[in-house]
């Protein structure tokens, strides 16, 4: 069945009430019955929940074949916990048919590819999928199609009972002996633990894995002892160098800076750019640099930012310290400046993934967002964005908060160079739709700006401010004139991944790629 972004979704997937994507806000006003976990009572006072090993913790939680384990990705490419837990479960306990439900997965998790190939891991639910895991899933080696969700779609799915977590594993930079966890104060700090929060509340069992045990009570706790079954102390939960970079640097690349300046110009031309406005930006080159130019316009007009959300890094903390933004609400930290500031700098708060972006709750932050600046691997002439699959059709990205912030914000700006190497970023048809075009408003490239025709109000703003813009078709033509018109990818029938829209409908599928033979 064809969905609202023109993608053909196999009927076989449309079971148990699953629908195809119908457009933005389709689920608005509908009711959901929230799922509830089956949890164990710990009525008798316990001195400590510390157990000797992961194997002991798994046994205590009744780990068995066919279970779903959840993980969160704040330790990013430095994470040791996913591999450590899966090794204990599969190699020491001999478990099979496991599903990994992670907030995201990266190249740190290459070893999991082996368990997929051996058929021990049969399901993957995640936002990001990269490296070897992306390759083996793309090659059709995972028994069931991977399910890809946005950061807001995941807590929605958990709350709706579409994902039932048997055991949630919390990678905790610090924990006390009963499982109050924080992302700071240890040796592998990650700052915010926002993505772990929903998991811990909705999982049947919760195991905290830490490398820094601190005195009780570890407050204020991101994940609380009331949800925790066991605490395991290990030598190291991750490589601090890969968890948070020293500092996210603002690009010096003149092309990035030119695009960033144009992003700021577009923002400043809209009526939403007024005292107290709200903002989210990515940490990619031109998106992060937009901060710099935006500050100039804020100074000029003597206005301040009300609040900023998202993955947080140094430049945003800097604005907070200078008093140019009143509050920063943080679901994840990208550099040490962010890590060291959360709950320390006044006005820098932590939030859960649900509070950040869940479309099914009653007040996610993204819904109050004025501006978001995002990157893209590809964007097509329908303004649909792909941030998941490479030009070769292989899984190597993550929707992350992209679809959530795009849908919630008043102005969603995509900033990307027109071409990358031989790849046309602006194209006829993206490989995979991860953010639907009805949520994307403005495209800024190094060859020009295009505004979505769905937003005549913004077209008027740009015209009034004298900002030149062109049609997205003309940008695509320019790109193809530089790199040549690409051939369409050829696919087999087998679906290797299902891409859920944030509301739970099916936005697109990724099929197994047919290799080109000349």
């Amino acid at each position, binding site marked *: 069945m064809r969905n609202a972004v023109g993608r053909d979704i196999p009927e076989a997937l449309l079971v148990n009430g699953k629908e195809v994507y119908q457009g933005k806000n389709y689920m608005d006003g509908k009711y959901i019955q929230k799922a509830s976990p089956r949890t164990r009572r710990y009525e008798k006072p316990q001195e400590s929940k510390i157990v000797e090993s992961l194997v002991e913790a798994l046994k205590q939680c009744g780990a068995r074949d066919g279970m779903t384990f959840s993980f969160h990705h704040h330790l990013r490419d430095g994470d040791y916990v996913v591999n450590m837990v899966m090794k204990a479960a599969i190699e020491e306990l001999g478990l099979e048919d496991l599903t990994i439900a992670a907030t995201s997965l990266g190249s740190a998790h290459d070893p999991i590819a082996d368990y997929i190939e051996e058929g021990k891991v049969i399901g993957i639910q995640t936002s990001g999928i990269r490296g070897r895991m992306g390759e083996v899933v793309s090659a059709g080696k995972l028994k069931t199609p991977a399910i890809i969700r946005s950061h807001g779609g995941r807590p929605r799915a958990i709350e709706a009972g579409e994902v039932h977590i048997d055991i949630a594993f919390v990678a905790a930079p610090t924990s006390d002996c009963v499982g109050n966890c924080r992302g700071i104060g240890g040796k592998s700090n990650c700052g915010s633990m926002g993505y772990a929060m929903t998991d811990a509340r909705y999982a049947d069992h919760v195991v905290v894995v830490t490398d820094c045990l601190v005195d009780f009570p570890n407050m204020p706790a991101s994940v609380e002892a009331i949800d925790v079954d066991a605490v395991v102390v290990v030598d190291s939960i991750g490589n601090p160098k890969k968890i948070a970079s020293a500092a996210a640097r603002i690009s010096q690349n003149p092309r990035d800076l030119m695009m960033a300046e144009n992003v700021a110009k577009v923002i400043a031309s809209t009526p939403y750019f007024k005292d107290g406005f709200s903002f989210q930006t990515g940490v990619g080159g031109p998106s992060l640099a937009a901060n710099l130019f935006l500050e100039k316009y804020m100074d000029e007009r003597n206005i301040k930012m009300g609040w900023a959300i998202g993955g947080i890094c140094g430049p945003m903390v800097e604005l907070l310290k200078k008093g140019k933004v009143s509050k920063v609400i943080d679901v994840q930290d990208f550099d040490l400046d962010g890590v060291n500031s959360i709950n320390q700098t006044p006005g820098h708060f932590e939030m859960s993934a649900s509070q950040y972006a869940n479309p099914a709750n009653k007040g996610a932050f993204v819904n109050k967002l004025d501006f978001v600046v995002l990157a893209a691997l590809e964007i097509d002439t329908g303004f649909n964005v792909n941030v998941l699959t490479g030009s*070769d059709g292989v899984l190597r990205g993550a929707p992350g908060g992209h679809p959530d912030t795009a849908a919630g914000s008043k102005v969603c700006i995509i900033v990307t160079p027109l071409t990358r*190497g031989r790849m046309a970023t602006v194209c006829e048809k993206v490989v995979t739709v991860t953010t639907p075009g009805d949520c994307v408003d403005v495209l800024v490239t190094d060859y020009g700006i295009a505004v979505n025709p769905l937003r005549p109000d913004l077209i008027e703003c740009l015209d009034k401010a004298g900002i030149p813009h062109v049609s997205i078709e003309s940008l695509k033509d320019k790109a193809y004139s530089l790199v040549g018109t*690409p*051939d369409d990818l050829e696919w087999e029938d087998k679906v290797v991944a299902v891409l859920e829209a944030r509301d739970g409908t099916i936005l697109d599928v990724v099929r197994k790629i047919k290799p*080109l033979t000349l």
Partner: protein
Amino acid sequence: MEILKSAAAGTLESSDAMVTVEPGDGGIELELSSSVMNQYGRQIKATVLETLDRLQVSNVRITVVDKGALDCTIKARVECAVYRSCDASSANIPWGGAVR
């Protein structure tokens, strides 16, 4: 032109291609790998064969390792590898044309 010895041109940097030519076994034998194979493989093959044809090379084993090079780069790398293989690359290089 006749390929007299093996020669190479280009690099493995992003947006470049490494082209190696060797004397052939009586025809054109092309081995192509590319980081953009699925979308541009056919076009790269056509560009390589056209360039060889323009240089009147009909007996060659040619290996192209493409890292997302544009057509103009691929043409230049193929020409250069061919010129080097027949010692025509030191002076008066007829870029864009064939050496007769």
